[in-house]
């Protein structure tokens, strides 16, 4: 399977703090790669570095072999990367419709089909179509954020902790939607919920103290209790 994205020895600073000190991983096309690690390990910063929001000081970020490390965020996004941030990034005063409309790059039949598909997946968005995004529940905001990233024909989706703060029944819904998207696109998923990560993911990378320390297929991690305890704090 071909590699869609490759990070090599990425180092990122935020202010004076050296957050990423050597993150390397490869994302195979068509798969879900899960980034795991404790709070503060550098998972969110890794996604923000890929998007150019916290640009890397050293190392390389290759998208289909092209260096994107020094590009501005909007150019990176236009290369086919959709981003669902940890805080969902909903425009609170814009309606659900406007939140999606602002994201649409091309208004064509394909976009309309993708929108129909995602609205069938998340009927709540249709129900609250004219409501401001700020009035949605946490789960609905998450759905909107995912819909906004998916509405364009992105080759890669970066999804940061989609289960965070959601009720179990909503987590199931979000998980189901990502499983369906998996059939159509490549995904990098940052997730603390191991059940969700192991259900969706094909392969994993563990980030600890700003470095990738382990990786493999998700089956390995499911069976390696010692590794889960050491790096994720779960048995």
């Amino acid at each position, binding site marked *: 399977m071909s590699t869609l994205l490759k990070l090599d020895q990425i180092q990122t600073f935020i202010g004076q703090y050296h957050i990423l000190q050597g993150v390397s991983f490869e994302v195979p096309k068509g798969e879900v790669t899960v980034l795991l690690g404790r709070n503060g390990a550098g998972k969110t910063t890794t996604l923000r570095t890929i998007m150019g*929001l916290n640009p890397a000081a050293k190392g390389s970020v290759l998208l289909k072999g092209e260096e994107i490390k020094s590009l501005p*965020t*909007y150019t990176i996004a236009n290369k086919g990367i959709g*981003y669902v*941030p940890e805080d969902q*990034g909903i425009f*609170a005063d*814009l309606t659900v419709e406007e939140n999606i*409309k602002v994201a649409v790059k091309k208004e064509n039949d394909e976009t309309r089909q993708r929108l129909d598909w995602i609205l069938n997946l998340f009927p709540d968005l249709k129900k609250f179509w004219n409501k401001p995004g700020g009035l949605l529940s946490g789960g609905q905001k998450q759905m909107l954020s995912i819909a906004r990233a998916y509405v364009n024909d992105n080759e890669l989706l970066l999804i940061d902790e989609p289960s965070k703060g959601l009720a179990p029944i909503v987590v199931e819904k979000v998980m189901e939607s990502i499983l369906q998207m998996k059939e159509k696109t490549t995904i990098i998923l940052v997730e603390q919920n191991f059940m969700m990560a192991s259900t969706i993911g094909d392969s994993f990378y563990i980030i600890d103290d700003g470095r990738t320390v382990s990786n493999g297929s998700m089956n390995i991690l499911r069976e390696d209790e010692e590794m889960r305890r050491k790096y994720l704090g779960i048995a």
Partner: protein
Amino acid sequence: MDVLINLSLNGLATGMLIFLLAAGLTLIFGLMDVLNFAHGGLFAWGAYSGIWVYTSTGSFFAGIIGAILTGMILGIVTERWIIKPVYGNHVQQILITLGLMLVLSEMLKVVWGPNQISAKTPDYLSGSWEFGGIIIIKYRVFIIAVGFAVFLAVQYLLKKTKIGLVVRAGVMNKEMVQSLGINIQKVFMFVFMVGAGMASLGGMLLGPYSGVIYADMGMEFAILAFIVVVIGGMGSFTGSVMAAVLVGLSGSFMAYYVPDLALAANMLLMAVVLIFRPHGLFGAKG
């Protein structure tokens, strides 16, 4: 009754002029997080360039177009070469835009001389209408109509167009807008250009309204505009129009009934709003 109507029209006309200046200021702050103290300079440059075109060509309409174009060009130059290097640093923004304000004012004196310049109302807008003993000055109605038309046009732009949607989204979350593949720098320049054009239009319209223009008029009106932005809420376009009308009306009525307190009234109004609604009447909390 005629006093009340005239004071109201006077207040509304002044309010609309302040609105034209404050609207750009609030959008620039809301979207770009830039405190632009040079905005008043664009107002004064609009007045001078517009009146110059008007007196040179004899066409008031050409003067208005000239003022708007001057403002837009100065706006682009200001954003690209003066403001852009200091994005994200409020202290440097204040210093550099205050400096630019002084430079713009002094440049007016270099180009058009230090004395004030008289500005005549065009014939077709001079004079007044009389309705049942109430005299209504045409030019005031014209300013109110132009201000209202600009308000509607900008509302349409913000609410019904994609660029407006992007601007509104950008005011809330610039980072996310960029993550959606939108070049926020281009949006910044567009907003700055529109804001500068509006300010210059305001300056041009003020000329015949007050009868004279002078280099320091920008600073005087900029103070009123800042009061309006604070009262209306930083970043709120609707807030800027409501607060501008409020400030215009309060100035007009206070100047007639309690002239000694006319200047203090706006400051007092701002203080009261800040005490009870620190984020302004229409501003977002936080």
